[in-house]
């Protein structure tokens, strides 16, 4: 077998129009170099002599096609390569369709608004369906899938204890230490317990637990349900006559809404314990810290905190499930669902927490 020569291009510019001679291997590797030169030299009616071509692949055929389209006449292309070129139908002028123009600014604003509207519609109908399923289960409690609910409660609740404990402990220690140092200047270290206790119970413990949950559980729900959607498992459920709302969403909502307040309570206790440990270093015995907190933080503070975490839990689980059910097709869609569930859950937390703050301020709780 002879070794093919690399692709070559001779341009005879003395002839009018210029005459091009192609030779050697016309393949993807070699064509790239001579393509621009060939294009530049070619004029209407140029003869392209391809008789010295040893090898021609798809790229070579595309080069010839391009030259023909630009008005060249290919001559002497070896017989065995002719079908490749014929497949491209080079003699037929191709109409180039107009490229779709990108929408103008106003159109884009409109499209964005329509998208927001669709999202809102989807969210509202999801909330409605979930509520309807919830009422159906309240009427017939046997319909709730207990096994699934407990499984989710374990993974979203019990398994989250270590990480919640870690963050809450750190939160208590940092809060206590950072406020004790300046408070000592006024001899007010004792009130650090009040400060930490109140801020943990009313704000920080519900919020931090919810943020952890959004990352751990909300994204997991979206990925889990999203994968089921991609695998057609959701379709299979529906054709068996089983409502995915009751089957997949409701157990998760119930499990999370029940476990998050418990997790929050746990976080509050651990956080206060951390703060009390720091205060021992400032000469305040643990019993004193405890009685300070007991006196200062009353029942309504606990209850508002727990109520908030209940709502946060519902929101996080709901967003996770909704994103999961909305998953498109393909592996990337699952990742996108998980990410968007996480981000949306955190945005929801911030907005909801702000609303709660305003509401509680006016209600004077």
């Amino acid at each position, binding site marked *: 077998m002879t070794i093919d020569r690399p692709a070559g291009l001779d341009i005879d510019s003395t002839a009018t129009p210029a005459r091009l001679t192609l030779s050697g291997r016309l393949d993807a590797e070699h064509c790239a170099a001579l393509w621009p030169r060939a294009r530049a030299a070619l004029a209407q009616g140029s003869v392209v002599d391809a008789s010295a071509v040893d090898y021609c692949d798809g790229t070579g055929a*595309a080069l010839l*096609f*391009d030259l023909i*389209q*630009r008005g060249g006449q290919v001559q002497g292309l070896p017989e065995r390569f002719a079908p490749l070129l014929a497949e491209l139908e080079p003699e037929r*002028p*191709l*109409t*180039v*369709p107009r*490229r779709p123009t990108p929408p103008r600014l106003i159109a884009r604003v409109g499209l964005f608004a329509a998208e927001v509207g669709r999202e809102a519609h989807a969210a509202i109908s999801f909330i409605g369906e979930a509520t309807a399923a919830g009422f159906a289960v309240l009427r017939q409690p046997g319909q709730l899938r207990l096994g699934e609910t407990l499984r989710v409660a374990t993974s979203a609740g019990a398994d989250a204890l270590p990480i919640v404990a870690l963050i809450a402990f750190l939160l208590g220690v940092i809060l206590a230490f950072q406020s004790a140092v300046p408070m000592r200047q006024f001899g007010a270290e004792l009130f650090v317990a009040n400060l930490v206790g109140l801020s943990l119970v009313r704000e920080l413990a519900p919020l931090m637990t919810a943020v952890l949950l959004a990352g751990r559980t909300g994204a997991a729900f979206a990925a889990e349900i999203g*994968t*089921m959607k991609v*695998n*057609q*498992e959701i*379709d*299979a459920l*529906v*054709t*068996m*006559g*089983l*409502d995915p709302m009751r089957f997949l969403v409701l157990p998760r909502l119930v499990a999370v809404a029940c476990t998050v307040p418990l997790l929050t309570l746990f976080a509050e206790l651990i956080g206060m314990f951390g703060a009390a440990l720091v205060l021992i270093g400032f000469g305040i015995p643990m019993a004193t810290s405890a009685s300070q907190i007991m006196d200062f933080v009353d029942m309504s503070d606990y209850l508002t905190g727990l109520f908030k975490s209940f709502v946060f839990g519902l929101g996080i689980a709901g967003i996770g499930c909704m994103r999961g059910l909305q998953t498109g097709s393909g592996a990337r869609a699952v990742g996108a669902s998980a990410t968007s569930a996480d981000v949306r859950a955190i945005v929801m937390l911030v907005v909801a927490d702000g609303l709660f703050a305003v509401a509680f301020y006016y209600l004077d709780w």
Partner: protein
Amino acid sequence: MAIPLVRFEGVRFAYGENDILRDVTLSVAAGQVVAIMGGSGSGKTTLLRLIGGQLKANAGRVEVDGEDIGALSESALYERRKKLGMLFQFGALFTDLSVFDNVAFPLRERTQLPESMIRDLVLMKLQAVGLRGAAQLMPAELSGGMARRVALARAIALDPRVMLYDEPFTGLDPISLTTIGSLIRELNDALGAASIVVTHDVAESLAIVDYVYFVAEGGVIAEGTPEAVRESSHPFVRQFIAGQKDGPLPFHKPAGAYAADLGLEVGRE
């Protein structure tokens, strides 16, 4: 002919402005296995979704066992779906449940049967598809053909009146293919059900079905028994059965974008 279990009458369906089905009329009787053939994107799977009630027709009637599916409420639909069994293209087994639990799933969720009876039923269904020995395996441990047989066992767990098969032959080796094909036929005869097989596998489906509908351009363009179809001179049917590239169904999707796709900015005179 007996009363049809599934009947389409002048069904039109569109996604947005895009007509998928323009005017489809067909019927399937109990005991029949019917194939619906057509190229990719001809609306075959849409037909199945209309029967399941996941989609609603824009016009016309879709009847299952004499009831107009489009007129039913959501909760009534869930109830009616008990009568339906569906085999998905890739099985759609629940990946976190074992083979046994997958087949037991519809029985546990949709019936009040005691667990001991469910066990017997599941083993019987698995026996029917020849996979009783695989009961304790997880779906990830099955080959593609086995997974589809398990999915078939799950789909027939509730002894449905109407069985729907979405591309049951895709991606199977010749042996699994024949196995699935004969299972479809045998199960249908045993259950006295009506089966609809959506497929583009010509040879395998012609061997097992009673009747064939060809769907293209939004409607049924040809129909008949396998013998009649083999003899048919209809150009579309000929093209489809012989697998010819050129015919009434164009190989090239209508588009002038070839040059643009190639990045060649010429031809724009």
